[in-house]
């Protein structure tokens, strides 16, 4: 007897990542050259990316329907691998400087990526939950790895308590949905809904629990309170990794659970997502204005951006999904890029206050201009990738007769401009305390260059990428 649909080829990307993670743990034990770990990690990520190729364009349910291989999973895997590779790059210098235990750091980063893979590539609530927990457990440790720093430990314990409580909520939601529909597989749940289970109040409660659990993971408004503290206290590369990767994984799970599993309750959850979206983006942007620490600013900015992405779920159309995917792709690159600059400034001896960016335009023009482009993209100023991301969400909202949501988005973009410009003004108009140029390690320069190129490219050829994303969204 064997499992139905045993398929190693299609599971290869995950297998390679797991092997890489274990290899990193073992390598760390037997070598003093910690840089080797980064190179091994990057090689593993690249191998996993190559292993994605055979599965491209195929749609298959493998391993007893536990793993779903389709273009949506493929899309998210590419995003996760890109984020992980960039996180490895920006960590290289940071880990050495802060004397973080390198083996644990890189191995956990890879394991968290495996968790994200599972979240994006399953139609079974059990596997989605398992992926969610793999990401969460790895990130608790990652957030607290600056063990000498009380802030890092504090961020870790706060993240742990809130996140595990929400996991419990999510779990209870799964049990309620399972109890009413008799299945953990999302397609079967959808069938049960269509056959009349939708009218049960218990199922509705289960849906609310699932929604709350996942909304925590993407830091949507009433469920966001862990995010600023966690992102401020954790090692900066991990903030970048969690804000982009873990959040994208959360959205992947949201897409799967609600669009595939619970379309029968769409009337209810579209309204909830619309409300969450408005609250989240407004709260994030308004709170970000008064921030003085760059990482907190980025945290609130991340909350606001999650609000924009939620628009795609509020409209619940193919166009909305495509717009979400496009935005998540763009967002991953511009945010990791911005964090690369933050790491550079922090490494140069200055702190992580916004005032530490004074005179960066003289100290390091390349990085200062790169940050300008990321920020313009985050605001959504026309020629940048972020603009097209917002435009897609905007037109998806209009096409779904939710013009008011589109209007709120535009108003929010206007609100968001001042706090980004505050940082830009600090970099260009204020004099630095010390004028000597910042020494940039090659890894950070590479990370910044790559994200910069992608951010600009996505802004130059948005149509091609968007038509690809449209295709991917059709697979859902």
């Amino acid at each position, binding site marked *: 007897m064997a499992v139905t649909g045993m398929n190693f080829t299609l599971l290869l990307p995950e297998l390679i990542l797991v092997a890489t993670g274990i290899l990193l743990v073992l390598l760390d034990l037997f070598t003093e050259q910690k840089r080797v770990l980064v190179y091994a990690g990057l090689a593993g990520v690249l191998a996993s990316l190559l292993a994605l190729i055979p599965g491209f364009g195929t749609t298959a349910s493998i391993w007893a329907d536990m793993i779903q291989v389709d273009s949506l999973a493929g899309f998210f895997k590419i995003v996760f691998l890109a984020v992980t590779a960039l996180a490895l790059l920006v960590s290289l210098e940071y880990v050495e400087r802060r004397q973080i235990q390198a083996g644990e750091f890189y191995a956990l980063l890879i394991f968290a990526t495996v968790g994200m893979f599972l979240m994006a590539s399953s139609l079974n609530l*059990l596997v989605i*939950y*398992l992926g969610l*927990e793999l990401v*969460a*457990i790895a990130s*608790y*440790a990652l957030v*607290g790895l600056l*063990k000498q720093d*009380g*802030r890092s*430990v*504090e*961020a*870790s*314990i*706060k993240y*742990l*308590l809130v996140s*595990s*409580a929400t*996991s*419990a*909520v999510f*779990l*209870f939601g*799964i*049990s*309620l949905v*399972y*109890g009413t529909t*008799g*299945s*953990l597989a999302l397609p079967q749940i959808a069938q049960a809904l269509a056959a009349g289970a939708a009218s049960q109040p218990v199922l509705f409660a289960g849906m609310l629990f699932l929604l709350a659990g996942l909304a925590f993971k993407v830091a949507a408004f009433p469920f966001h309170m862990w995010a*600023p*503290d966690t992102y*401020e*206290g954790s090692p900066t590369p991990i903030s970048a990794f969690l804000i982009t990767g873990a959040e994208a994984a959360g959205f992947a799970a949201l897409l799967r659970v609600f669009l595939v599993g619970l379309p029968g309750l769409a009337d209810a959850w579209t309204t909830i997502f619309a409300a969450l979206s408005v609250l989240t983006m407004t709260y994030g942007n308004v709170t970000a204005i*008064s921030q003085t620490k760059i990482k907190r600013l980025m945290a609130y900015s991340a909350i606001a951006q999650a609000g924009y992405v939620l628009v795609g779920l509020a409209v619940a159309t193919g166009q909305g999904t495509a717009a979400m995917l496009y935005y998540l792709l763009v967002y991953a690159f511009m945010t990791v890029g911005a964090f690369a600059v933050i790491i550079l400034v922090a490494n140069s001896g200055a702190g992580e206050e916004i005032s530490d960016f004074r005179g960066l335009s003289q100290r390091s023009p390349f990085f200062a201009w790169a940050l300008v482009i990321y920020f313009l993209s985050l605001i959504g100023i026309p020629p940048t990738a972020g603009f097209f991301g917002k435009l897609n969400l905007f037109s998806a909202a209009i096409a779904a007769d939710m013009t008011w949501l589109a209007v709120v988005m535009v108003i929010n973009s206007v609100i968001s401009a001042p706090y980004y410009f505050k940082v830009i003004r600090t970099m260009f108009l204020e004099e630095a305390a010390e004028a000597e140029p910042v020494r940039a390690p090659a890894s950070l320069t590479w990370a910044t260059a790559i994200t910069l190129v992608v951010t600009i490219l996505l802004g130059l050829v948005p149509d091609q990428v968007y038509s690809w994303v449209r295709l991917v969204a059709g697979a859902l």
Partner: protein
Amino acid sequence: MPLAAYLLVSLVLFVLGGLGLMIRRNPLVLLMCVELMWNGANLAFVALGRGLEAMSAHVFAFVVITVAAAEVAIGLAILVLVFRGKARQDVDEVNLLGERG
């Protein structure tokens, strides 16, 4: 014994855990409250699995137990770090991060 009774107990466990999370202040107790919530959900699973006569729920319960163990292990490790920094018994004293600082 009807299924509803088991579900009621699971709900009570879950709500107790949630309440404890809100009113208790010792991080170790908070961790235990979270465990209570997890076990509440898990009990619901096992009960429903019996009710539906499906094995998938039992498998799920195993997985949840394992995940809970991993979560507690890492939670305790982080708690040790918190206590090592300063003998803090109260989560309200863990307040280096925030708008004021």
